[in-house]
C-alpha cells in the first residue's frame, strides 16, 4: 500500500476511532479471530492510544500471531523484530516460547536448550511451557549433548539421552537395550512421543507387528514424529494410512526403513506410473533402474517380477496386448536377466493367446509359441525333460478338448452328456506323444493319448496302448479299469477279469468298477454256458453274486436277476434241477415277483431259449399279470423293458404295448410321487408313451396342482412332443415352475430348472440376433417353414461356443 494511501487510511481509522471506538474494537477483534494479525495490530495500536491498559493484551496477541506466522514462513529476522516489539511493550526482556521457536527454525539447538533451561529455572513446569514437545523434538534430533541442560535439569537431560541412545541402539539392532533405555522416559515427559516411537520401532524390527501398530498408531498427526511413523504403518498395511494417498517422500522413507535404500529412487515413480495406468512405462522404469530385475528370487525383485508378468492376465485383453507389445520393445543388452525376461514374456504370450485360438492356424501358432518357450528355457536354464513333458501335455490337453457338436433343437433340455469332437485330434495326438517321449513316467500323457484314440474310434491303438500301460503302471486303478473295460468290449474276458478284479481290490469302494465287473461276469458266464462250459460258467456266476447287491431293481448286480439269468442258462444246458434251484433262489431274493418273472421271460427270449421254455415262463408271467395292476409294478415293468431294449430286438415292440397298457391300467391306483416320476420319465424317453405320461401327470397335479416336479415334467413332455421351437412363453413357464420349486425348497429341481432357463435364454438371444435385434416372438416357430433360419441359428450357436467348422 502506498504511503499516501496508508496515511489516508490512518486518517480514516483516526476518524473512525474518534467517532466509533466500539466499531474499531469490533473490527480489531474480528481481524484477530480470523488470523489477520497485521490489520488487527493496526487497529489495536490505534485503540491503545485511547486506553492502553484495556487494549494492550489484544495488541500483544496480534504481535504473537504475526511472529508465529513469520516463523512458520521462515521470515525469521522479521519474527525477531516482532518479538523485540513484544518485549518492549511488556517490559519483560526474558526469552520465551517464541524465542524457542525461532531457535528451532534456525536449528540453533544450543539456544533452544538455553532458553528452555532458563524457563525451567524460573519454576515453570516443563509440560506447561508452550511448544515444549517441539523443544523435545528439536533437542533429540540435534543428537548431541547439552551441558547446560545437564547441570540445570538432570532428569530431563537423562530422558533426552535415553531417547537419543535408544535410537542409536535400534540402528545397531540392539533392540532390547533400546527399549530398556526408553523405559526411563516418564509417561508425562516431554519426550513421551519419542518413547512411543522407539517402542514402535523396536516392535517393528522384532516382527511384533501388532505392538508396532498400537504404539505408532498413538502418535497424533500434529507431531512431526507422525511423519516417521507413517512409512512403518504403511508397510504393515495399517488401515490408518490411505495407501492411495502416499506421497513420494513417504514412499521413499518406506524403502529406507524397510531396508531397501537402493530402490528409493525407483519405487515412487514406478508405483505412480502404474497407478496412472501407464503399465509399460512402470515396467520399463523398474527394469531399467532395478538391479537383477526380472528375477525368480524370493525377495522383492521376485515379487515385482511376478507382479509385472502376471498382471497381464488380469487386464482386459486389448490392454494386456498393448502392455505386452510395449514391454517387448526394449534394447536391454544380453544378460542373465535379459534371457529370463525373454522367457517370461514368451510364457505370458503363450498363456494370453491360447485362449484366443479359434482355428487350425491359431492352433499351430499356439503350439509354436510354447515350443519357442521351451527353446528359450533350455538356453537360460538348460534341459528339463519333465518341464517339456508338461508343456506338451498342456498342448495335448488343449487340442483334445471336446468341442460341442451342432446342437439339436432341444439340446438345452437334454440331460445327457453332449459328446462332441476333439478340437484338433492330430495335434492332440502329436503332443501327447511328445509328452510321453520327454517323460516316460507321465501317466497323464498316456491317459490323454488314450482318450484321443478312443474319441477317434481307433480301437486297435487303444488296446495296444492299454497293453503297454499295464506293466508301466501296474497298480493304477484308472488304467486297470480302462484296460479291463476294453478287454470286455473285445470279449477278452479272462484278461479283462484280471484287470478289473485287481482294480476292485485296489479300490473296493468304486461303484463304477463293480458295475464293469458285473458286466464282465454276466457276459463271460453267458459265453461259457453257450459253449457248454458249465463249470466255468457257474464259477463266474458265483463271482457275480459276490459282486452282487440286494437292491431291488439293479438288473446287472441284483442277486435276484443274476440267479434268473443263471437259471435260464442252466436250463439251456439241460440242467433242469439246477435251473429250478436257481429260479427258486431268484424268487427268494426279490420282493417284486412280477418284474422278476417278466425279466426272466424277456431274458430267455434274448438268450434264444427253446420255445416251450419261453411259453412256460410266459404263462407264469401271464398269471401274475392278471392280478390287479399296481403303479409300483408298472414302474418296475417299464424299467425291465427299458433295460432289455438296450439289447435291441424287434420282438420287443409288442412287449412295449403290453407294458404301457399295464401302466395305464394301474393309473387309477394310489401312487407315490417317486413311482409317478419314474413312469413319467420313461414317457419322456419314448414318444409312444406320451399318453401314459399325460395320464400320470394329470393324476399327480390333480392331487397337488402346484407340485413343481410334476409341473416341470408336464412341461417337458409337452415340449418334447411339440413341433415348435421353444419361445419366450416357454421361458416364462419355466420361470413360474422355478418359483414353485423355490417355494417348496426343492433345491435339486431348482438348480436343474435354472440351467434349462439359462440355456433357453442363450438360445433365444441368438435367435433374436438373427431376427434383427428385437425380441423374436411370444411363442414358437414352425420348423418346417423356416429351415434357413434354423440353419443360421445353428451356425450362430457354433460361433458363439467357439466351435470349429468341420469339413465333412
Amino acid at each position, binding site marked *: 500500500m502506498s504511503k499516501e494511501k496508508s496515511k489516508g487510511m490512518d486518517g480514516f481509522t483516526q476518524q473512525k476511532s474518534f467517532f466509533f471506538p466500539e466499531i474499531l474494537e469490533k473490527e480489531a477483534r474480528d481481524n484477530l479471530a480470523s488470523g489477520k494479525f497485521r490489520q488487527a495490530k493496526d487497529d489495536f495500536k490505534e485503540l491503545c492510544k485511547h486506553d492502553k491498559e484495556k487494549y494492550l493484551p489484544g495488541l500483544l496477541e496480534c504481535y504473537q500471531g504475526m511472529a508465529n506466522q513469520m516463523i512458520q514462513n521462515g521470515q525469521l529476522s522479521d519474527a525477531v523484530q516482532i518479538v523485540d516489539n513484544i518485549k518492549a511493550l511488556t517490559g519483560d526482556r526474558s526469552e520465551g516460547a517464541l524465542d524457542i521457536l525461532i531457535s528451532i527454525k534456525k536449528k540453533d539447538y544450543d539456544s533452544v536448550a538455553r532458553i528452555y533451561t532458563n524457563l525451567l529455572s524460573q519454576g515453570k513446569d516443563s509440560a506447561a511451557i508452550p511448544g515444549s514437545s517441539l523443544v523435545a*523434538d*528439536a533437542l*533429540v*534430533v540435534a*543428537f548431541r549433548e547439552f551441558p547446560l541442560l545437564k547441570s540445570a535439569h538432570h532428569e530431563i537431560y537423562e530422558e533426552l539421552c535415553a531417547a537419543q541412545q535408544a*535410537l*542409536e541402539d*535400534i*540402528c*545397531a*539392532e540392539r533392540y532390547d537395550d533400546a527399549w530398556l533405555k526408553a523405559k526411563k522416559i516418564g509417561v508425562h515427559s516431554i519426550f513421551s512421543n519419542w518413547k512411543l516411537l522407539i517402542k514402535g*520401532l523396536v516392535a517393528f*524390527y522384532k*516382527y511384533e*507387528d501388532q505392538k508396532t501398530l498400537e504404539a505408532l498408531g498413538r502418535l497424533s498427526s500434529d507431531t*512431526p514424529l*507422525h*511423519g*516417521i511413523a507413517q512409512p512403518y504403518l*504403511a*508397510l*504393515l*498395511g495399517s488401515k490408518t494410512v490411505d*495407501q492411495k494417498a502416499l506421497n513420494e*517422500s513417504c*514412499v521413499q*522413507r*518406506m*524403502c*529406507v*526403513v*524397510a*531396508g*531397501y*535404500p537402493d530402490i528409493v529412487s525407483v*519405487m515412487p515413480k*514406478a*508405483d505412480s506410473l*502404474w497407478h496412472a495406468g501407464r503399465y509399460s512405462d*512402470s515396467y520399463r522404469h*523398474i527394469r531399467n533402474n532395478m538391479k537383477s530385475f526380472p528375477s*525368480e528370487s*524370493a*525377495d*522383492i525383485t521376485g*515379487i*515385482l517380477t*511376478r*507382479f509385472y508378468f*502376471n498382471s497381464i*492376465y*488380469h487386464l482386459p485383453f486389448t490392454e494386456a496386448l498393448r502392455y505386452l507389445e510395449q514391454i517387448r520393445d526394449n534394447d536391454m543388452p544380453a544378460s542373465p536377466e535379459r534371457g529370463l525376461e525373454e522367457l517370461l514374456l514368451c*510364457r505370458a504370450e503363450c*498363456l494370453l493367446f491360447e485362449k484366443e485360438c479359434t482355428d487350425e492356424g491359431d492352433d499351430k501358432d499356439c503350439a509354436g509359441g510354447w515350443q519357442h518357450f521351451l527353446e528359450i528355457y533350455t538356453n537360460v536354464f538348460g534341459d*528339463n525333460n*519333465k*518341464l517339456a513333458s*508338461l*508343456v506338451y501335455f*498342456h498342448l495335448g490337453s488343449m487340442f483334445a478338448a471336446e468341442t460341442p457338436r451342432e446342437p439339436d433343437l432341444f439340446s438345452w433340455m437334454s440331460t445327457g452328456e453332449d459328446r462332441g469332437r476333439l478340437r484338433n485330434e492330430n495335434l492332440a495326438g502329436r503332443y501327447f506323444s511328445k509328452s510321453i517321449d520327454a517323460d516316460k513316467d507321465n501317466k497323464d500323457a498316456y491317459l490323454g493319448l488314450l482318450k484321443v484314440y478312443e474319441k477317434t474310434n481307433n480301437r486297435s491303438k487303444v488296446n495296444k496302448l492299454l497293453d503297454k500301460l499295464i506293466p508301466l503302471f501296474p497298480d493304477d486303478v484308472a488304467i486297470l479299469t480302462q484296460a479291463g473295460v476294453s478287454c470286455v468290449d473285445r470279449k477278452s474276458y479272462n484278461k479283462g477279469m484280471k484287470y478289473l478284479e485287481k482294480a476292485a481290490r485296489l479300490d473296493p469302494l468304486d461303484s463304477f468298477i463293480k458295475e464293469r465287473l458285473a458286466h464282465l461276469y454276466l457276459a463271460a458266464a453267458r459265453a461259457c454256458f453257450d459253449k457248454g462250459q458249465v463249470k466255468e460258467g457257474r464259477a463266474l456266476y458265483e463271482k457275480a453274486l459276490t459282486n452282487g447287491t440286494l437292491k431291488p431293481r439293479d438288473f446287472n448286480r441284483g442277486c435276484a436277476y443274476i440267479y434268473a439269468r443263471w437259471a435260464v442258462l442252466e436250463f439251456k444246458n439241460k440242467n433242469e434241477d439246477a435251473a429250478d434251484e436257481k429260479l427258486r433262489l431268484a424268487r427268494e431274493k426279490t420282493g417284486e415277483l412280477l418284474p422278476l418273472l417278466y425279466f426272466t421271460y424277456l431274458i430267455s427270449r434274448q438268450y434264444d431259449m427253446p420255445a416251450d421254455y419261453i411259453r412256460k415262463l410266459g404263462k407264469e408271467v401271464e398269471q401274475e399279470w392278471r392280478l390287479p395292476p399296481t403303479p409300483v409294478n408298472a414302474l418296475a415293468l417299464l424299467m425291465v423293458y427299458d433295460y432289455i431294449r438296450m439289447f435291441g430286438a424287434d420282438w420287443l415292440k409288442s412287449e412295449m404295448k403290453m407294458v404301457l397298457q399295464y401302466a395305464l391300467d394301474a393309473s387309477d391306483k394310489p401312487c407315490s410321487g417317486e413311482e409317478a416320476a419314474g413312469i413319467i420319465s420313461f414317457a419322456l424317453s419314448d414318444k409312444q408313451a406320451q399318453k401314459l405320461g399325460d395320464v400320470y401327470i394329470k393324476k399327480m397335479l390333480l392331487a397337488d396342482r402346484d407340485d413343481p416336479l410334476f409341473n416341470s415334467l408336464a412341461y417337458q413332455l409337452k415340449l418334447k412332443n411339440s413341433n415348435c421351437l421353444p419361445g419366450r412363453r416357454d421361458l416364462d413357464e419355466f420361470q413360474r415352475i422355478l418359483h414353485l420349486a423355490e417355494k417348496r425348497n426343492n433345491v435339486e429341481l431348482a438348480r436343474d430348472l435354472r440351467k434349462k432357463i439359462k440355456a433357453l435364454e442363450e438360445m433365444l438371444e441368438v435367435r433374436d440376433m438373427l431376427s434383427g435385434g428385437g425380441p423374436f416372438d411370444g411363442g414358437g416357430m414352425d420348423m418346417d417353414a423356416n429351415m434357413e433360419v434354423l440353419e443360421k441359428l445353428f451356425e450362430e450357436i457354433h460361433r458363439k461356443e467357439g466351435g470349429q467348422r468341420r469339413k465333412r
Partner: protein
Amino acid sequence: MTPYELLGIASHADDKTIRSAYLELIKTYPPDRAPERFKEISAAYESIKDEKKRLEYYLFNKDVPVNRPLEALSLQTQRTGRRKPPDFDTLKELLRQCMTK
C-alpha cells in the same frame, strides 16, 4: 502370496521339506480351530507337493501377489525374514526431514 511363502519354505524345497512344513502348519491351524487358514494351507500344499505340481505351478500360475508395485515392499516386509534398520546417520537424516515439515 505364493504357496512357498505361505508354507514358509524356499522355492527349491524338496517333497520332504514341503510336507514337513505343511504338517507343522496344520498343527498350528487345525481345521476345527482355523478352518479358513487350514484351507489355504492345504490348497498351497496341494499345488506344490511334488515335482510335477511344482513345475505346473511354475508354468501356469497367474496369481498376482500384490495390486501395485509399492505393495511389494509391504509384502516383503510382512512375510519374510528381512527387516534391517537403516544406519544411524540415515535415521538421523530421516528424523530431521520430518522435523522441518
